[in-house]
């Protein structure tokens, strides 16, 4: 099966890496070998390439150091920072809201009243984007657009971030399970790609009552679930609550009772009113009372 077209020296040299990788088709390989047999220049070229690749493989690794201290340090990280420890998370990640620091697994209720406060929330995603973290927006279109505009104002290239999937807009589902699944998939996808942390910003409240949108009850259910989900996943979740339009029960239960942390007046605080998810969900399914 030889081709009538002879291979030129130039063609052969272009194919050397594919040849050494065993990636040429049988036909190409035949043409390669045929030319190689009769061409001293290409024999020398291929030989040099082999010699060099072989030499690279023997390249002395940078000075062998004793890495046992380093290994010990990494082991210390595992012992103290693993997500199997639920308490005493280290707060060392810039939250991007005020000048606060967050810990992995944080679930923050962010209450806003003025337009200025709302626009400042984009700082949460901006901090993540500049740290090379993944950012996921989940909410209604108008809020998402304002957040994206806020990122652009902070000199971030929104188009490039979205193209590289570092910044994503998740679909809103009408059930808590659907929403949780959506968020869960985004986190796992980002982790698979080697992203260290995923920031999730939820704006679920403006389109209350429209078809296909989660009901208040479903939003409360996902809020409660998110708290326990976030404990073992490399994520930080911020949920924005518009205090000017939301009804009291939603602010009280979805906002205040479902977030272990709250952000208000530029301060991140532990929320004494937080209700443990198990109890919250139990009471919610038992109905109002």
């Amino acid at each position, binding site marked *: 099966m030889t081709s009538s077209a002879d291979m030129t020296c130039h063609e052969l040299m272009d194919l050397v890496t594919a040849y050494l990788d065993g990636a040429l088709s049988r036909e190409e390989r035949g043409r390669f070998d045929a030319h190689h047999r009769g061409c001293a220049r290409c024999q020398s070229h291929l030989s040099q390439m082999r010699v060099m690749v072989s030499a690279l493989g023997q390249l002395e690794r940078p000075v062998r150091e004793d890495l046992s201290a380093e*290994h010990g340090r990494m082991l210390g990280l595992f012992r103290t920072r693993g997500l199997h420890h639920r308490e005493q998370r280290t707060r060392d990640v810039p939250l991007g809201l005020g000048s606060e620091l967050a810990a992995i697994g944080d679930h923050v209720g962010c209450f806003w009243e003025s337009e200025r406060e709302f626009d400042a929330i984009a700082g949460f995603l901006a901090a993540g984007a500049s740290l090379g973290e993944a950012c996921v927006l989940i909410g209604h279109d108008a809020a998402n657009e304002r957040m994206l505009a806020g990122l652009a104002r902070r000199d971030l290239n929104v188009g490039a971030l979205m193209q590289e999937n570092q910044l994503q807009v998740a679909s809103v589902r009408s059930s808590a399970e659907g929403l949780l699944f959506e968020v869960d998939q985004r986190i796992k996808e980002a982790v698979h790609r080697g992203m*260290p942390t995923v920031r999730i910003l939820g704006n679920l409240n403006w389109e209350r009552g429209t078809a296909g949108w989660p009901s208040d009850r479903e939003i409360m*259910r996902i809020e409660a679930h998110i708290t326990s989900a976030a404990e073992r996943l490399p994520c930080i979740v911020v949920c924005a609550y518009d205090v000017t339009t939301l009804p009291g029960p939603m602010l009280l239960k979805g906002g205040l009772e479902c977030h272990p942390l709250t952000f208000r007046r530029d301060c991140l605080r532990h929320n004494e009113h937080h209700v443990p998810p198990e109890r919250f969900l139990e009471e919610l399914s038992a109905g109002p009372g």
Partner: protein
Amino acid sequence: MAPPRPCYDPAGWRGLGTSDQAASREDSALLDALRRGDADAFARLVAEHHASLRRVARLYVANSAIADEVVQDTWLGVIRGIWAFEGRSSIKTWIFRILVNRARTRGVREGRSASFIGALPAETGTGPDWTPPTLDRGSSPEQSLLTKELGERLRTVIDALPSNLRIVLWLRDVEGWSSEEVCNALAIHETNQRVLLHRARSRARAALEPYLEGAPGGARGR
């Protein structure tokens, strides 16, 4: 509609349980051990990859202190990600993906960055049939030809390569990774990987020609 579990349990939620089947048995066992908080399992993982992570990090960033920070960030990423990692790639590939991600972020900040986007023409066609590599380092007659001088030259040449070429060349030829491993870690297509490797090797060979000429086997053909 069955009521949901009272609380989210990543290990029991859909996704993790099923996709772990894609991982090798050793990786699944390792992942389980890490999730249980088994420090010995983590220590073995560190012993296996730490040195190699440092070398690869060094390809991206300006000095070894930054490289060490990148490697520490990588292990933190592993520690935090073990519940969300689904085993869609090997653990080794995943760790290096985290490293590359961390190193690129740092590299961008430090002004020494590698980008695979836009570095290559659009791909066309499909890959050729895969056959085992013909390069067999172990039995190569050139086995011990690496002189001190050639070694130094190689380092200089590698250092002068654009970072995207340098990284592919280093992983394939110095670390001895397979083409598949490199593609997975860098999230690039096999065709791209080969083009980058070929460019890197061609530049290095051209720069080293005088040294390769005199090397044993240098003019002998195969």
